[in-house]
């Protein structure tokens, strides 16, 4: 019996040491926290989180002034990534800040545009080009779909279109689990 206790004890110590070593060996290098958080945020720069852009929100989270569930564009996946990064439990997106939506791009109806430059000033990433009194257009590659340009437009000529549409944007859906637990469970008495 004593031998067994010794063997198990030693084994415990050895495995504990191994686990400790693994934890040290594979620890993430600690970049400044706000940078790491900013990396995870979607950079839509829409301000829905209540801060003027992703970076300020990241800094607020790092300071502990904001929760991790305030970014609708990042959605559930984004919250999960933040939770993992910060070692917290994920939580549902705060409804006060908005809902998760598919990605969109802004399109300016160039016939309607009066060239007022208001949208240019609103765009957080300078993705709209145009000179005063000239028609403006959106650079597709740079638009983040933040929708900040819609409200300022005096003639309502900006609309949001789905970012990935048609055959080129088609994606296979996530396979459905075929373990039809519900069907069988329903047959139980």
């Amino acid at each position, binding site marked *: 019996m004593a031998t067994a206790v010794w063997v198990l004890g030693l084994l415990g110590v050895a495995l504990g040491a191994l686990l400790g070593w693994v934890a040290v060996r594979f620890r993430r290098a600690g970049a400044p926290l706000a940078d790491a958080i900013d990396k995870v*945020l979607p950079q839509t720069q829409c301000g829905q989180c209540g801060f003027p852009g*992703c970076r300020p929100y990241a800094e607020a989270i790092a300071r502990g002034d904001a929760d991790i569930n305030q970014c609708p564009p990042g959605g559930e996946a984004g919250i999960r990534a933040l939770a993992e990064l910060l070692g917290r439990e994920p939580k549902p997106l705060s409804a006060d800040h908005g809902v998760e939506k598919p990605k969109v791009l802004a399109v300016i109806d160039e016939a309607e545009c009066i060239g007022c430059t208001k949208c240019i000033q609103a765009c957080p*990433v300078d993705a709209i080009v145009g000179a*005063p009194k000239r028609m403006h257009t959106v650079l597709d590659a740079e638009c983040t779909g933040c929708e900040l340009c819609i409200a300022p437009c005096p003639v309502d000529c900006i609309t949001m279109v789905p970012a990935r549409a048609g*055959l080129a944007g*088609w994606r296979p859906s*996530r396979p459905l689990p075929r373990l039809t637990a519900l069907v069988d469970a329903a047959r139980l008495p």
Partner: protein
Amino acid sequence: MNAPQRLFAFPGGLRLPEHKDAATRAPSRACPLPPRLVLPLSQHAGQAARPEVAPGERVVRGQRIARAEGLGAHLHAPAAGVVVAIEDHPVPHASGLPAPCIVIDVDPAAGEAALLPALPDWPAIEPAALRARIEDAGIVGLGGAAFPTAGKLGRPIDLLVLNGAECEPWIACDEMLLRERAPAVRDGGRILARIVGASRIVLAIEDRMHGALAAAREALAGADDIAVVAVPTIYPEGGERQLIRVLTGAEVPSGGLPADLGVLCHNVGTAAAVADAVLRGLPLVERYVSVTGAGVADPVTLRAAIGTPIEWLVAQAGGYRADAERLVMGGPMMGRALPTDAVPLVKAANCVLVLTAAELRDDAPELPCIRCGECVRVCPARLLPQQLHWHLRAGDFDEVEAHALRDCIECGLCAHVCPSHIPLVEWYRWGKTELRVRAEDRRRSDLARERFEARKARLEREDAERAARLAARRASAPAATAGDADDPVAAALARAEAKKRGAATEDADGA
């Protein structure tokens, strides 16, 4: 003939039931022209072609009807007739979504074929001109990937592999092509070799394809520039990377191209199309296609015009049997199920397969992975399919990337042998697009971060400048009233400077 070829093994792989006799029993038949052809503008890797005809226009066989844009391939009319529309039409794609197509009402009497000039003296022609001919003929890889052929001919090559190892069950179009047109494959191989400067050519054929081997050897009797090599019949032997490994022992680097090893691999059908384009001036307007499976009455291999509706092809094979369950374009391992047969034959389609319930995976419930490791054993990419599946289910894409999902060739073996009947390949197809989307999102968000920071810096700079200008004006105003004694020149210069800077920021605004 060259010295006997030493063969190597590739990892994993499996012998599968062949079912090849169905579509090889009789010689191939020419498929009669259907009343209407539908030609998708995008039936190759790369950008869609741009139409060069308008509705109502008459076209003749061989006439170019759409030209390549960027990386792409030209499209030619397979038969004479009238363009009736350029519109969205269902295409053979898993989504079932329509895509732009040119629709031609066939009228064989509408005019003589307009072929390119034949180049029988090709050995004397510059490689660049031959390559241009392949481009002009709209040739793409006929093995299934549909990569524009001319696009693969730009790098110096040592070994040219002609891939006749048609390893998926049922498909038999390469076998029939080799039996019936081995000389064309030979000539096409020689032309391709001349273009890339290859010093060796290997024609690889699976060892069970006796008829094809015999025909190839006969076509090459007395010649020693092309080695006919019988390779063992193991799925997925015909995969480009697997075949190159078997023939050379080398592994094409992950994310790289065979050309990195000095090897170029072309399907035998592509080689025959090259021969047709050069020797006969015929653009790619038809191909061999097997219409087979237990769900068709009379399986056959056809020579059919591109754009022929699948429905028409199946009718040539005696129509559907009553128990036909699934329509697949391609083979039973990698082919895609089609929701309807009202779609056209495209350049890359080697097989139209109709399966009955008895030849299909059943819908038995999927069980959890029991970690049996069968999938690991058969995976030709030496991946850990069960780990990939686990991490995909958990949504852990960093791990998925670390387990090299992108090296999966979607051969389907793992899902085939999985005792738990997990649709592994469906997970991988989803995961691959997800990875692509994520990479794209990351690129976009990095760009957005950069531009956001740049804008913030610009706004701050503008604010600072405005403040500075204000301060300068306030400071200079009393000085001016006190009598512009100090240094009028310096003050004027400063004013000009400030103005210039202001203009510069306005420019930036406008940009």
